[in-house]
C-alpha cells in the first residue's frame, strides 16, 4: 500500500519536491538569476521526463485520488506546457527580483491542477481547484511596477471567488440530494430531478467561468491584458486545459444519466462562445487581449468536440489541447520576448516585423496558422477532429455554424500576418536578441505543430487511451 502511494502520486510528489527545492534556493545563499533559471528549467525537464514512465491504474485515499494512463497523459501535457512557458519567460525573469516566488506560485497552482484532474470526489476536486486558482491571482500581480497588473490580480481573485462560490453551491445541492460526493456512487443517484438539474447548472456555470465560456468570459480580457505574459500564457493554456480535462471527466463519468441535458447546454455554450469570441477578437489591438478573445473562440470549438460524448470526443479534446499548447505557447512566446525586450504589446507595433525579425515572424505566423486551423499545421487536424466528433451527433447546423466561424477567425489571424509581412512601418521593432533557451522552446513548439498533426501516431495513441460515455 505504502509503495503504491509513491507510484500513483509520482507526479504530484515530484512537483512538491520541486517546490521544496525552490524554497531552499530562496533561503540559501545569493545566486544569479541565470543560474536559478537554468536549474529550474533542468528540473522541469526531469519532471516532464519522469512522467513518461510506466503508467499504472489505481485509486488511493478511498477513491479520492484516482489515476490511469489517460490522466497521466493529461498531466504530462500540463508539465510540457509549464516547461515551455518557463523557457520562454527567460528574458523577462532574468531581471526579475522575485524569481523564486514566481515559480513557487506557478508550481503550487500546477500541483492543485494535478489533484483536480485526478480527483474521484467532488471535495477533492474543489480542493484542487482552489489550490490552483489562488496562487494564480498572486502571480498575475507579478509585474510589480504596473498598476494594470494589480488590477488584473484583483479581478481574477474576485471573479474566481465568485465562480468558486457558485460551484460550491452546486456541489452542496448535489450532496443534499444524493448524500455522497464520490464520482462512482454519484452516477447512480443522478436523474432528471429539478434540484439536481439546478445543481448541475450551477456546476456548469462554475466551470464555464474557469474556461471563460460566454457568457462567463467577462474577466478574461482584462486579466490577460494586465497580467505578465508568462502568467497570461499559463492562464490561457495550462489552467484552461486542466479545467477542461476535469470538466470532461465529470460530464462523461458522473453526469452520464442526463447526457441529453448537458448536450444541449454544451451546444448553446459553444455557439455563444465561438460567436462572441470571434466578434470581439476582430477589433482588438493589444496582442494579449487579442489572444484572450481568440482563446475564448477556441474553447467554443473544444466544447463542440466534448458534446460529441464519444471516445473520439475526449480523444479530440486532449489532442486539441496538446496542439493548443504548442501553437498558443509559440504565439505567447513571441509576444513575451517582444514585450520583455522591446516593451511593445500591440498588434500595430508588429508592422514591418518581418524585416527586422524573420525568425520570430515565422514562429508567430506558423503559430497563428495553427490556431486558425490551416494545414499542414496540427491545428487543422485538431479543429477538424473536434468538429468531426461533434458531427457524430448529426448536428449539422452546429457544424455549418462552426465552419463558417472558422472563416471569421481566419480573418483576424490573417490580419496579424498581414501586419507582420505586408504593412509598411517607419520604425519597426528593432532586431531582438532572443535568448538561446527561448529559441529552443520555439523550435520545440514548431516541431510539435508540424509533427502532432501529420504523424497520426499521436492521435492514435491518445485515442487508444481515451474513453467515451
Amino acid at each position: 500500500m505504502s509503495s503504491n502511494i509513491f507510484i500513483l502520486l509520482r507526479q504530484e510528489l515530484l512537483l512538491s519536491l520541486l517546490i521544496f527545492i525552490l524554497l531552499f534556493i530562496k533561503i540559501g545563499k545569493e545566486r544569479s538569476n541565470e543560474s536559478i533559471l537554468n536549474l529550474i528549467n533542468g528540473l522541469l525537464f526531469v519532471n516532464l521526463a519522469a512522467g513518461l514512465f510506466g503508467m499504472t491504474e489505481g485509486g488511493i485515499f478511498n477513491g479520492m485520488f484516482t489515476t490511469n494512463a489517460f490522466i497521466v497523459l493529461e498531466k504530462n501535457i500540463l508539465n510540457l506546457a509549464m516547461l515551455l512557458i518557463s523557457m520562454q519567460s527567460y528574458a523577462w525573469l532574468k531581471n526579475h527580483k522575485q524569481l523564486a516566488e514566481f515559480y513557487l506560485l506557478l508550481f503550487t497552482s500546477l500541483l492543485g491542477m494535478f489533484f483536480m484532474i485526478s480527483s474521484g470526489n467532488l471535495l477533492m476536486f474543489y480542493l484542487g481547484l482552489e489550490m490552483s486558482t489562488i496562487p494564480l491571482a498572486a502571480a498575475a500581480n507579478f509585474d510589480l511596477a504596473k498598476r494594470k497588473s494589480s488590477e488584473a490580480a484583483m479581478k481574477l481573485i474576485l471573479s474566481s471567488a465568485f465562480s468558486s462560490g457558485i460551484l460550491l453551491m452546486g456541489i452542496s445541492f448535489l450532496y443534499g440530494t444524493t448524500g455522497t460526493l464520490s464520482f462512482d456512487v454519484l452516477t447512480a443517484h443522478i436523474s432528471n430531478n429539478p434540484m439536481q438539474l439546478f445543481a448541475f447548472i450551477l456546476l456548469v456555470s462554475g466551470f464555464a467561468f474557469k474556461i471563460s465560456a460566454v457568457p462567463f468570459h467577462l474577466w478574461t480580457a482584462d486579466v490577460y491584458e494586465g497580467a505578465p505574459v508568462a502568467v497570461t500564457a499559463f492562464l490561457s493554456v495550462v489552467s484552461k486545459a486542466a479545467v477542461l480535462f476535469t470538466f470532461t471527466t465529470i460530464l462523461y463519468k458522473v453526469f452520464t444519466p442526463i447526457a441529453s441535458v448537458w448536450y444541449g447546454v454544451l451546444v448553446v455554450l459553444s455557439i455563444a462562445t465561438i460567436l462572441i469570441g470571434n466578434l470581439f477578437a476582430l477589433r482588438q489591438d493589444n496582442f494579449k487581449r487579442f489572444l484572450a478573445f481568440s482563446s475564448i473562440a477556441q474553447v467554443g470549438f473544444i466544447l463542440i468536440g466534448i458534446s460529441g460524448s464519444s471516445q473520439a470526443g475526449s480523444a479530440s479534446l486532449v489532442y486539441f489541447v496538446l496542439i493548443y499548447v504548442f501553437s498558443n505557447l509559440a504565439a505567447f512566446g513571441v509576444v513575451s520576448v517582444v514585450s520583455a525586450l522591446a516593451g511593445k504589446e500591440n498588434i500595430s507595433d508588429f508592422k514591418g516585423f518581418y524585416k527586422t525579425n524573420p525568425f520570430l515572424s515565422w514562429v508567430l505566423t506558423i503559430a497563428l496558422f495553427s490556431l486558425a486551423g490551416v494545414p499542414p499545421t496540427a491545428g487543422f487536424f485538431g479543429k477538424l477532429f473536434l468538429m468531426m466528433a461533434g458531427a457524430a451527433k448529426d448536428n449539422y447546423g452546429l457544424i455549418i455554424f462552426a465552419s463558417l466561424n472558422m472563416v471569421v477567425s481566419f480573418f483576424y489571424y490573417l490580419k496579424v500576418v498581414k501586419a507582420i509581412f505586408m504593412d509598411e512601418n517607419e520604425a519597426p521593432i528593432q532586431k531582438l536578441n532572443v535568448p538561446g533557451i527561448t529559441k529552443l522552446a520555439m523550435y520545440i513548439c514548431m516541431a510539435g505543430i508540424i509533427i502532432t498533426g501529420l504523424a497520426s501516431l499521436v492521435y492514435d495513441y491518445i485515442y487508444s487511451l481515451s474513453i467515451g460515455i
Partner: protein
Amino acid sequence: MNLSLLILLPLLTALLILLSKQLAQIRVIGLVGSLAQLGAASWLLKLYMDQRAAGNTATYLFETNTTWFKALNINYHIGIDGIALAMILLTSLIVVAGILVSWTMEKLSKEYFFLLVLLSMGAYGFFISLDLFTLFFFLEVAVIPKFLLIGIWGSGKKENSAMKLALMLMAGSALVFVGLMGIYYNTNTFDMVEIGKMGISLGVQKFFFPFLFLGFGIFAALFPFHTWVPDGHASAPTAASMFLAGISMKLGGYGCLRMAALMPDAAHSYSWIIILLATIAIIYGAFATMMQTDLKYINAYSSISHCGFVILGIGMLNKTSINGAVIQMVSHGLMTALFFAAIGMIYSRTHTRMVAQLGGLLKVMPFISTVFVIAGLCSLGLPGFSGFVAEMTVFMGSWQNPDGVYRAATVISAASIVVTAVYILRATGKTIMGPISDEHALLSDATWNEKLAAGLLIIGILIIGLAPFLINQLIMPSTDFLMINIDKAITLK
C-alpha cells in the same frame, strides 16, 4: 511509379530552397526541381499509357492505400485516372513556366520561390488524392501560399485582394468541409472509390451536394462567388497569377467534377441551377471584360467566362460535355498562364498595364507581342489552338441535351464567343499595333527564360489544338468510368 513522388519532389525542392543562400542557387534549385516535376509527370504519362495499352482497365492506376488516422478511418489513398493525369501534366508545365518568368524576382526571393513550390505541392496532392480527407487537406494547403504571394509581392491594393481571396477560398473550403462531414457520417468512410461503389442515399445527396458543389465552385469562380478572381489575379505577381488561374481555379473545377460523379442523383436534379449559374458566368464575364482597361483585369474577367464553360460542361452531365469540360480546364490553364506571362513581360518593361497607355509594342518586342497574340487567339477559340477544341467539345456535348432550356443555355453561351472576340481583338490591336510612344521605343524583347516559358506553354496549346485525339485518348476512358454512375442515375429518373 509511386505517386507520392509528386508530393515529395516539391517538398524536397522547397526544403532545399530554404537551405540555400544566394539568389543564383535558389533559382537553379527551383528550376531543377520544377523540371524534375515535369519529368516525373511525363514519365507518369508514359507509364500510364503503357498500362492502358496493355489492357489494364482499372479505374485508377498506381493506387496506394496507407492508413493515416486509423481510429477515424482516414486513409492516405492515392491513385490517378486520365483526368487527374491531365491536370498533373498541366500543373507541372505551369510550374516550370512560372519559375522561369520569376527568374529576375529579387525581393525576398527565397520566400517567393518557397511559396511557389509549396503551392504546386498542394495542387499535386489534390489531384492524386482518392481519399476525401486527403483531398481536403491539400486543397487548403494551397490557400496560404496564395495569400502571402499576393500580399507581399503583389501590386496595387494587394493586401485587400489577398485578404478577399483567402477569405473567400476559406469559405469555400468551409462549405466543402460540411459536405464531407455529411458524406462521412452517412458512409463511414472518406474513400472516394468505396463511396462510389456503395453510393449515397438520395436525401443525403440532395442536402450535401450544394455544399460541396458551391464550395468547390468558389474555387472555380462560379457565379456569384467569382469576386475574388479579378482582384486576386490583378494584384498578384506574374507567376502567382499564372498559378492562380492556371492551377488553383482548376482545383475547383476538378473538385466539382468529382463531386458530380460521386453524387450523380443530386447533380442531375440540380443540373438546371448549375447550368443557369454557368451561363450567367459566361455572359457576365464576357461583358464585364469589355469594360476593363487593365490588361490583367481583362484576362481575369475573361477567366470567369472561360471557367463558366467548365461548369457548363459538368452541369450538362453527358460524356461529350464532361470531356469538353476537362479539355477546357487544361486549355484554359495553359492559355491563361501564357496570357499572364505575356502581360507580366510587358508590365516589367513598360511599367503599365493600361491598354490606353500601350501601343505599337510589336515594333520593339516582336516575340512578346507574338506570344500575346497567340494567347489572345487561343482565348477567342480560333481553330488550331486548344481553346477551339475545348469549347467546341463543350458545345457539342451540351447540344446533345434535347431540353429546350438547356439548348437555350448552349446558344447563349456560344454567343459569348463573339463578345470574347471583340475584347480580345480590341486589346491586342491597341497594345501591339499602332504608333508606339517615345518612352517605350527603346525597350528590349524577351530574355531566354521568358522565351522558354512561353515556348513551353505554346507547345502545350498547340498539341491540344492540332492533335486533340491525343488528349482525348488520355481522358476518354476515364470519363467513361465517370459516366457509368451518372448514366445510372439519369436513367433511373
